[in-house]
C-alpha cells in the first residue's frame, strides 16, 4: 500500500517547479533529466512522479536515480507522446512541474537475505535501475544477484555504462539479449525468456520483472514453468494515469488503481487478471 499515513487535505494536484540540472541522451528516443534537490527527494525504488510540461500536459515517469543520493532526482524518459516529446526538447536550466513520489515500490527490505533476479525489458530497466543500485550498494544483505536485460538491438541497450559496470563486478551476474543484431554483437539473440530458462534459481529466489506487458506475460510463464511460486514474483504494471492519487479512475486494473495500489504488485495478487485481455 502507499506510504501515506496521514490523510492529505492539500490539493494533490499542485506541482513543484524544478529546474533541469542535466540532460543525457541515452538512446535515439530516450533521454534522462536530472534535477538537484538540495532539501532531498526521498523515494523508494519503483515509485514514480508526475512530470508536467508548462501548458502541454503531465505524464507518470518512474524514478531511475540512486535512492542513496536523494538530493538528485533522476527520470529516464522515452519520447513517445506529445508531452514526452516536449520534454525531449528541454535543456539545462528549463523547468518542469513535479509531484510525487507515488505508488508502491520493489520489496527490497522484504527480500533481504534471498537471491534476487531482475528481469527487465527495454525501458523497463529505468524503474529497476534504482532497485539494482540499492541492492549493489547493500550487497551483503542479499544472496546471488542476477540482472537479465532484453533490448530490441545492441543500439537499444539502455544505461550502457551501468550495464558494463555491473557486468564487471564479480558479485553480480548480468546477461543481456537482443531481438536482432549485426556482426558487432557477440551475446545472445532472442527473447529474454531464453535467458530466464537458463538462469540458476532457488525456490526462494525473489524475481523482479519490468517491461512491456507482453514480455512480462511470457517471463512469468517461464518462471512458473521453472517452479518459482507466484508470491516470489513482483511486476511493475503500467496504465494511463491522470491524477496519480486514485481519484480520476483512469489507471484501473480490475479492483486496483495502479497509481496507488501499484505500480509494483506481487504477482499472486494480480494473477487472476493477468491473462484476461482488455482488463
Amino acid at each position: 500500500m502507499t506510504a501515506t499515513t496521514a490523510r492529505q487535505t492539500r490539493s494533490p494536484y499542485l506541482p513543484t517547479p524544478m529546474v533541469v540540472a542535466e540532460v543525457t541522451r541515452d538512446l535515439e528516443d530516450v533521454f534522462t533529466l536530472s534535477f538537484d534537490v538540495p532539501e532531498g527527494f526521498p523515494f523508494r525504488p519503483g515509485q514514480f512522479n508526475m512530470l508536467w510540461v508548462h501548458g502541454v500536459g503531465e505524464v507518470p515517469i518512474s524514478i531511475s536515480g540512486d535512492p542513496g543520493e536523494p538530493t538528485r532526482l533522476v527520470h529516464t524518459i522515452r519520447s513517445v507522446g506529445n508531452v514526452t516529446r516536449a520534454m525531449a526538447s528541454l535543456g539545462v536550466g528549463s523547468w518542469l512541474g513535479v509531484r510525487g513520489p507515488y505508488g508502491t515500490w520493489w520489496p527490497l527490505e522484504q527480500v533481504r537475505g534471498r537471491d534476487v533476479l531482475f528481469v527487465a525489458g527495454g525501458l523497463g530497466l529505468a524503474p529497476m535501475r534504482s532497485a539494482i543500485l540499492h541492492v549493489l550498494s547493500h550487497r551483503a544483505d542479499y544472496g546471488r544477484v542476477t540482472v537479465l536485460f532484453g533490448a530490441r538491438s545492441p543500439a537499444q541497450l539502455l544505461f550502457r555504462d551501468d550495464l558494463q559496470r555491473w557486468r564487471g563486478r564479480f558479485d553480480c551476474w548480468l546477461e543481456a539479449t537482443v531481438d536482432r543484431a549485426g556482426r558487432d554483437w557477440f551475446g545472445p539473440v532472442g527473447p529474454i525468456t531464453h535467458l530466464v530458462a537458463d538462469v540458476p534459481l532457488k525456490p526462494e529466489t525473489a524475481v523482479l520483472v519490468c517491461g512491456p506487458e507482453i514480455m512480462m506475460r511470457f517471463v512469468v510463464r517461464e518462471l512458473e514453468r521453472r517452479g518459482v511460486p507466484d508470491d516470489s514474483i513482483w511486476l511493475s504494471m503500467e496504465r494511463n494515469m491522470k491524477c496519480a492519487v486514485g481519484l480520476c479512475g483512469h489507471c484501473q486494473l480490475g479492483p486496483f488503481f495502479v497509481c496507488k495500489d501499484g505500480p509494483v504488485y506481487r504477482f499472486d495478487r494480480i494473477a487472476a487478471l493477468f491473462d484476461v485481455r482488455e482488463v
Partner: protein
Amino acid sequence: MQASAGGRMRIDVNGLDVLLRALADEGHELVGPRVQDGAIVLGPIRGVEDLPRGVGDEQTPGRYRLRARGDDALFGYAVPQHSFKKELLLPRVTLVRIRRGKTGAVVEAPPRPDRKVAFVGMRACEIAAVEVQDRVLRDGPWMDADYAARREQVFVLAVQCGAPSGTCFCVSMGTGPKAEAGFDLALTELLAPEHAFVVEVGTEAGRRILARVPRREATAEEEEAAARVVCDAAARMGRTMDTTNIRDLMMSNLEHPRWEDVAERCLGCANCTLACPTCFCTDVEDTTDLSGDEATRTRRWDSCFTFDFAYLHGGGVRPSLRGRYRQWLTHKVATWHDQFGTSGCVGCGRCITWCPVGIDITEEVAAIRATSATAERGG
C-alpha cells in the same frame, strides 16, 4: 406549535415555500427539480412556483417522457435527468494555475469554493450516491479538495420517493426508497385529504430552519399515510437486480459470451456514465493564455467508454466496446466493493433510461447470472 423530540411535523405547501425562502435567506443557493426542454432537470429554483407541479415521468429503457399527473403533486416523479453529482463533482473545475515568469514559475491553487447550497427534493438513491462519492473523493488517503469543500456546505432537503419509475431498482440495491439518514430535513408529500408534507428532522441545522416555518405536529393518520407512501413505492419498483454474491459472479465471468452480445448493442456514447450519480472518472486538460505564460489545468468529467480513456503509448488498453462495457459494469457492481467497500450502483435507473439503445444494467447482470460459467447463481 413546538417541535417535540421524536414527533414528526406537518407543513403545507405554503410552509414549503416559506422553508425554501428561509433557506435562501440564510444564504443557500437552491438547486432543485424543474421542467426544462421536456424533462425534469436540476437547476436553480426560487420557491414552490418553480417546482414541476402536477408533472410525472415515464421512464423505460431508452425512453423518457413527461406526463400530466392530473393532480398538484410537486414531487410526483422518480429521478430527474441530472443527478446532484454536477453540483459537487463539477463537470469542469480549475485544479491549478501556473504562471511562468523570468524568475521561475508561480503555482497558484484555486480558491476554496465557498457556496452554501441546498439540494431540494433529493431522493434516497441520490443521498446514497453522494455517500458513495464521499468514499471515493473525500474519505481516501488523498481527497479531492474542491469536492470536499463543496460537500461541507450542502443542506439536504430530501423528499421521500412516492413515484418510482419503470427503470428504478433502489430496493434491490438497499438504497431506498426511504431515506433513513443523510438529510437535514426529509419531507413526505401527501396529496389527500390535503396537500401537505410530513417532515422528519435529520440534523440540528434542519431543526433550526424548520423553526422558521409555520407547522404543527403531524397526526397519527398523517404519519401513517407518509409511511404508506414509501411502502407503496417499494412495491412498485420497475426493475430488480439480484445482488447475491455479485462481486464474484462478475469477476468469474470476465469471458462470458454476454459481453460480446452487449458490445453489439452498445454505441460507446458515454451517456450512462454522465447520467450516473456515482461515476467519478475525470480527465485533466491543459490550456494556456495567448502569451503562453499562464497555464491552467482543468479537471473535467471523463468516461471509461471513450477510446482514449485507457490510452497507453501507441494504443488503448481497451480497444473493443466489449472491453469498455465490461470495465464499466464490473467496476460499478463488482470491483467497487474491493475499492470502496460498497456497490457503485444505487439503483436510480438513469443509465437504463438515458441509454439511447436501452441497454439495461439489470438485464445484463441477470443474463450473466442465468448462464454463469460457475455456480454463482443467487437465490
